[in-house]
């Protein structure tokens, strides 16, 4: 029996197809203006990789910002629940998930079954979300995906005095004019974002083993900076951290198909 999870985020859409305890295929695309279209395109991508068609999927569950627009979803689940469920399924020792998305950040505490026990959320202020790095990469003229590698060459990361994305952007420009090294600036940006997210996580108290999910977790510079900011070693996911929400949705789909929900 094949099941699927479809995670429609603000910037990217993700789909995962599972059979029993295995991930058969996954797909990630940039979100289209219309969430329903994103869902169809990303799902088609995953189905093609798996050599399947929509008829083969017993149940699909939608999650993320655009979850209610997934036309073929039988049910929907919040991304917080999905991240918790998938993190526990992939790494049973995990008790806390820090998820940094393109337009939000979440800290989620789960129990040994993957159930959410406490969470904190920021989608009010762009600083402290993936958008922070996106804006800064654009103003420095570098690729978002290169930031991790660049930051590892930092010798003396800058200490930013502004938190606000708008003010920090101006600060970055003057740092460039002042001749600061690019790696030091990028390293400083990772540090700033990490501290912001770490204080969100601390607001619900750090507990147990912690993992990092969401697109920003692919940035190894951020992964290391968050470890430093929290003062703990983070658990690394074997799967692409960006598809964790979709995996969670597929796990919910499995339960739904089995009549457990």
């Amino acid at each position: 029996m094949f099941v699927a999870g479809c995670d429609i985020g603000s910037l990217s859409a993700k789909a995962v197809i599972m059979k029993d305890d295995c991930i058969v295929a996954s797909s990630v695309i940039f979100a289209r203006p219309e969430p329903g279209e994103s869902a169809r395109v990303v799902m088609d991508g995953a189905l093609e990789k798996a050599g399947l068609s929509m008829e083969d999927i017993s149940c699909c569950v939608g999650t993320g910002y655009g979850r209610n627009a997934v036309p073929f979803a039988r049910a929907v689940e919040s991304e917080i629940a999905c991240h918790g469920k998938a993190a526990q399924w992939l790494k049973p020792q995990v008790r806390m998930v820090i998820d940094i998305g393109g337009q939000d950040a979440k800290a989620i505490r789960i129990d040994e079954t993957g159930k959410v026990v406490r969470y904190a959320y920021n989608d009010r202020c762009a600083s402290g979300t993936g958008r922070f790095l996106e804006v800064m990469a654009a103003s420095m003229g570098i690729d978002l995906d290169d930031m991790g590698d660049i930051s590892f060459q930092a010798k003396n990361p800058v200490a930013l005095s502004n938190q606000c994305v708008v003010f920090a952007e101006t600060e970055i420009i003057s740092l460039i004019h002042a001749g600061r090294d690019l790696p030091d600036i990028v390293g400083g940006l990772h540090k700033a974002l990490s501290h912001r997210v770490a204080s969100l996580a601390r607001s619900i108290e750090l507990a147990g083993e912690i993992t990092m999910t969401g697109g920003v977790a692919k940035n190894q510079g951020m992964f290391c900076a968050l470890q430093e900011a929290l003062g703990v070693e983070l658990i690394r996911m074997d799967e692409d951290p960006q598809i964790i929400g979709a995996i969670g949705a597929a796990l919910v789909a499995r339960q739904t198909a089995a009549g457990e929900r």
Partner: protein
Amino acid sequence: MISAGCDVGSLTTKAVILNNTRLLGHAMIRSSINPEKSAYEVMEQALKATRLSFDDVGFCVGTGYGRERIGFVKKTISEISCHAKGAHFLQPSIRTIIDIGGQDCKAIRLSANGEIFKFITNDKCASGTGRFLEVMAKLLGLGLEELGSISKQSSRPINLASTCTVWAQAEVIMHINDGMPSADLAAGINEAMAARVAILARSVGIEKDVCMTGGVAKNAGVLEAMEKQLGVPMRRLRVDPQMMGALGAAVFAREKMEGK
């Protein structure tokens, strides 16, 4: 007795020349990277308009963000004190000042004799500061001044749900793509700005008379939206509200000369 005030802000630098209590002249320029140079330049402009020279000025007080870098001032005073001084000098009935600058926003409460007893500042978040309007004006392809004037033609201002400048920007882009008229966009932007500032103002308590100072006070859209938000009229001052800090500095300078 000639006194002067020089206000070096993040975006603009202002100077005011006083002869006792009479305003002789003022000038404003865009701030350069060098506050010292900006201060000299604006003072020379203000002096030129009054046919005076540096030697005629008995005492000059510096204020604003770059005040510690002005060479020719004899004393520096915080911009909060200077705004309060300037507003009280022009209109002694003022009890609440809302000052919106290019990169910050302040709400100041005054006692009957013009003393500050409470104030609050936001310089952490661009939303609710002049920067918010600057970002939005650029997005709309309008000048900062146009943002105020054009909003008067609006019949249905857009509603912005986000406080954050970055998110609000995305919302405005969506409305632009939907073909919303510029007037409705501008009016919605001004209202969002006023709503944000009103929260700050209410946190120090509003007592009449209330006035607005700083560059954003020249935006009639924001001014009227503030009146609606707070439910009190904004007292219009007879001097350019952007000059208030420099004016207050000049009044302080005069008091110094009088030995106060």
